[in-house]
């Protein structure tokens, strides 16, 4: 027997120090091997993608970085560039105010729409993020009147009386709505109409000659401001109208059902551009030349009607997705129709409808550029009309349209991101 232990040549007494993994199994190399070059097909695709990125960047980067910001005309831009590739951003530097506010909005009043735009974020925040204190909704309710006063100016009494009408409506609804929703709603509407009638009469009498904020007619609005105004107004108006239409379409009462069905199907069967032409062209025949309804209002009505019909169908989809059990549960609790809708059905149906509603809202926001066809100078109208038609800037396409695309992208991407957050926030199922 021999002592085996003494014959062992080497015993590892302490652990081998940790060595870094081989460079092919960790770090960027591994990541690249896993994600970019995990097979000959993927390697090929990676190389192709890299090449595509290179081609795009080598085309656009010199153009972007060489951009000329200081020039008076396209010809001067070209002189400065002297044959090199480069963008002529000077057009944005010179005409940014026209792109944002239109060419007729008084330059010394730009602070007013800007302030209204900033306040918009304060106003929509409590609606969008319901973790914020509910008291902020007070400001949201006031915001339309503040924004109207800021953008259009004129006498302060018109927004005040408009607000008073809605306040009266709300008070009557509070009083009567406890017993009957319908009674409260229409009673309130009647009272509001009376307040507005008296208000318009008084406003005409007491409006000062020189209002505190200079009045700006609707015709002078333009640029991206017009797109934002149309988009925000029409989306916020068309969601409640769309809900009402969707409920009306599901109603058991034949008259209401028929009205809603005909309305939705008719509006959905007509292109938006047709409705806009009706608003701008046909209605002018029906009113005397002096007393037309404001063009902005006409367009708002038409776009709202259009998107309300679409939103109604989206919400109907949400309502249809709810199991019958939910309706029956509401009935079995003894809730009446408005209560059942408000407390049980709509919260679930609207949650299901979020992607569809956002889809309509984004589409609607981009559709507001269609008003350039009826000679309103929204962002696209400004570019296609006055700016490209000026002798200095005729021929600058990429810079202007790229700028417009950027503005629209920022807003639409924002809406999309918000809706995804909202869906995550509202997720109660176990997907």
């Amino acid at each position: 027997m021999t002592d085996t232990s003494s014959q062992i040549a080497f015993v590892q007494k302490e652990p081998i120090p940790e060595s870094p993994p081989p460079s092919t199994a960790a770090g960027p190399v591994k990541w690249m091997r896993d994600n970019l070059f995990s097979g000959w097909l993927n390697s090929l695709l990676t190389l192709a993608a890299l090449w595509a990125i290179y081609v795009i960047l080598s085309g656009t980067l010199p153009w972007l970085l060489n951009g000329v910001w200081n020039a008076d005309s396209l010809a001067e831009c070209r002189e400065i560039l002297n044959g090199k590739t480069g963008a002529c951003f000077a057009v944005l530097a010179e005409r940014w105010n026209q792109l944002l506010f239109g060419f007729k909005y008084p330059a010394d009043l730009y602070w007013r729409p800007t302030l209204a735009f900033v306040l918009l974020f304060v106003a929509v925040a409590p609606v969008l993020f319901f973790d914020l204190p509910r008291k902020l909704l007070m400001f949201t309710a006031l915001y339309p009147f503040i924004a109207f006063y800021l953008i259009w100016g004129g006498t302060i009494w018109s927004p005040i009386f408009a607000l008073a009408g809605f306040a009266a409506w709300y008070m009557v609804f509070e009083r009567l709505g406890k017993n009957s929703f319908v009674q409260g709603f229409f009673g309130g509407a009647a009272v509001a109409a009376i307040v507005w009638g008296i208000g318009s009469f008084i406003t005409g009498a007491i409006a000062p000659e020189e209002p505190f904020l200079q009045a700006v007619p609707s015709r002078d609005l333009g640029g991206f401001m017009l797109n934002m105004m149309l988009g925000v107004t029409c989306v916020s108006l068309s969601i409640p109208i769309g809900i009402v239409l969707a409920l009306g379409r599901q109603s058991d009462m034949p008259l209401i059902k028929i009205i809603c069905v005909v309305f939705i199907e008719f509006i959905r069967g007509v292109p938006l551009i047709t409705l806009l032409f009706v608003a701008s062209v046909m209605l002018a025949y029906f009113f005397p030349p002096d007393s037309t309804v404001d063009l902005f209002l006409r367009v708002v009505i038409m776009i709202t009607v259009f998107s309300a019909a679409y939103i109604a169908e989206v919400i109907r989809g949400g309502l249809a997705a709810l199991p019958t059990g939910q309706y029956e549960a509401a009935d079995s609790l003894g809730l009446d129709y408005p209560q059942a809708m408000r407390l049980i059905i709509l919260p679930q149906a609207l949650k299901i409808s979020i992607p569809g509603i956002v889809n309509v809202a984004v589409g609607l926001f981009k559709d507001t550029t269609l008003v350039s066809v009826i000679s309103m100078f929204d962002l696209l109208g400004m570019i296609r009309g006055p700016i490209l038609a000026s002798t200095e800037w005729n021929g600058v396409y990429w810079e202007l349209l790229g700028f417009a695309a950027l503005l629209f992208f920022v807003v639409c991407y924002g809406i999309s991101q918000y809706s995804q957050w909202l869906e995550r926030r509202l997720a109660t199922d176990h997907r």
Partner: protein
Amino acid sequence: MKKSVFLGALTVAGLAAAAAAAGTVDDVKARGKLNCGVTTGLVGFAAPDANGEWNGFDVAVCRGVAAAVLGDPAAVEFVPTTGKTRFTALASGEIDMLARNTTWTFSRDVDLKFTFVGVNYYDGQGFMVPKDLGVSSAKELDGATVCIQTGTTTELNLADFFRSNNISYEPVPIETNAEAQQQYLAGACDVYTTDASGLAATRATFEDPAAHVLLPEIISKEPLGPLVRHGDNEWGDVVRWTLNALITAEELGVTSANIGEMAAGTNNPEINRLLGTEGTLGEMLGLDAEWAKRAIMAGGNYGEIFAKNIGEDTPIGLARGLNAQWTEGGLLYSPPFR
């Protein structure tokens, strides 16, 4: 009996309506502003500048009329119209006159019930080709690819021209002028055809305008002029004679520079009648004696307006061509002020 009363009432109502519809001059004076329809933007003809101030060849007509009627060339509310909204805007009374490079055609005059008061620009469809192509006449364009805006009269004119000359072409349909510029520059077509003024304006925006030529052939007639509604001849006269005053002023050598001394009285009786120192032309028109003087001072005579907005010294660089005075071989021929 009953029927005749009814018809009588109808007639009275009709007359009252006509009376209410008439009197655009008075409407404009009462309003203190002329509502003038212009394009939403066309290089050289009408476009607002960086300060939102409208300028251009068509705009000058509006300013002239405003100066004649209201005494202030700035008293104009410019109502931008598109090709689709322009006629309804005029017919519905939203605008008092339309000065929007609109071609005077039979159907627009007769069927749409407008009165074209004259022609302020004689346009016509032309061709633009790159110089490298080595073409000097449109008749050498056999087999060429042609960029053409769809759905316009230019498309029909082009087909007629090529058929009557027995040559073939391949159309490249495009939607807008902007698209046409890009297509043409990218070489998608050999030839671009549209109104000659538009071609010149387009060429002016190219990096190297000298590398492109306009062919001498003009294949259609496009007389562009201001128009008003049917049914108010007094107003039509005001606009017509304001335009004629601008044209006559050039013919008689009255410019915005020398109008001051001319208005003091000259030994040319027609100038005196035009500027109101002799005769009662203004009164006949329902305006004061100096109406034409103010119209000319607003932007100069026709020649000055042309030179300032679209003439050879501007980037657009249009030659007078057909738009020269009749004394210089053009078509501008104002009836006499007598």
